[in-house]
């Protein structure tokens, strides 16, 4: 195992989180070190000397890893925000619009104080979740022109997404149960259109947190 291989393995170990961005970054780092080693070898150094010089120029793992970690975490946060937006947008259509799952369970909303409270809460939580995801999406992309975006932003995005992904389905299922008209078909619809998509958001948020 060459010194460059050892270095790249150490760098990989120092960057937790989703593998796709990390893989790209490490590939670029590997290409760079290969080029730098070749340049030093062409200048007359032995392979071992050339690798040592290339690694010295590149920077120690302690110096380089924080920047790579920020990049991986921000990319993961951006993906989570995109996913949350994509999952949230059809929810209004599913519940209040064309499909109207709530009315399918019961044509008239139950005369329950809890149901009405949850109806208001889910509207606010849904709106806040969507707006937060759109802001996070903007900040982790074009927002980097003006704002210092790092792991703190990624952590905030992931926490926000995770909370939304847990609260909305719990309230949604509770409301369906409160209608008193929950059938197997409706339960399966809720699983397919609500629980499964939000589970993906939660998984993505957890991966983002792991990268922070």
């Amino acid at each position, binding site marked *: 195992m060459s010194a460059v291989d050892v270095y790249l393995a150490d760098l990989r170990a120092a960057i937790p989180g989703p593998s796709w961005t990390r893989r790209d*970054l490490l590939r670029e780092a590997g290409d*760079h070190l290969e080029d*730098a080693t070749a340049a030093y070898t062409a200048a007359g150094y032995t392979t071992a000397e050339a690798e040592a010089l290339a690694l010295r120029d590149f920077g*120690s793992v302690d110096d380089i890893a924080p*920047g*790579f970690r*920020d990049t991986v975490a*921000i*990319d993961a946060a951006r993906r989570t925000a995109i996913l949350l937006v994509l999952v949230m947008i059809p929810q209004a259509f599913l519940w209040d619009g064309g499909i109207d799952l709530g009315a399918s369970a019961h044509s008239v909303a139950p005369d329950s104080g809890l149901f009405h409270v949850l109806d208001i809460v889910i509207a606010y939580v849904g709106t806040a979740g969507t707006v937060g995801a759109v802001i996070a999406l903007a900040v982790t*992309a074009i927002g980097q022109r003006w704002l210092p975006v790092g792991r703190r932003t990624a952590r905030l995005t992931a926490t926000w997404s995770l909370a939304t992904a847990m609260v909305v389905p719990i309230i949604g299922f509770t409301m369906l149960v409160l209608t008193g008209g929950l059938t197997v078909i409706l339960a399966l619809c809720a699983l397919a259109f609500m629980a499964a998509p939000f589970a993906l958001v939660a998984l993505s948020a957890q991966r983002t947190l792991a990268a922070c």
Partner: protein
Amino acid sequence: MKADALRGHLDSLILAVVEKQPLHGYAIIEALSARSGGELDLPTGTIYPALRRLEKAGYLDSSWSEVGGRKRRTYELSSAGRNALAAHRQEWRTFAKVVSGVLGEA
């Protein structure tokens, strides 16, 4: 010149070296070193997070292309990056003129 002194300027320096043609990471480092007369002293590994940040900010476009028989991610200036570079150049000229006007009086 140390990395601390470059803070806030690295992004513009990167945009400047890819202004004329798309370059991959190592070539960008080489161009930075050549155009600074070897005075830039920063760990070369720090360039990759900066490149990714500039790409996500819309200042650079990247694509994988074959360079020297190997697949490399190459970066080129986007139109937004070109505008940002022009704006930074103007700011820098004004800043340099002001500072030179004061420091040059010794």
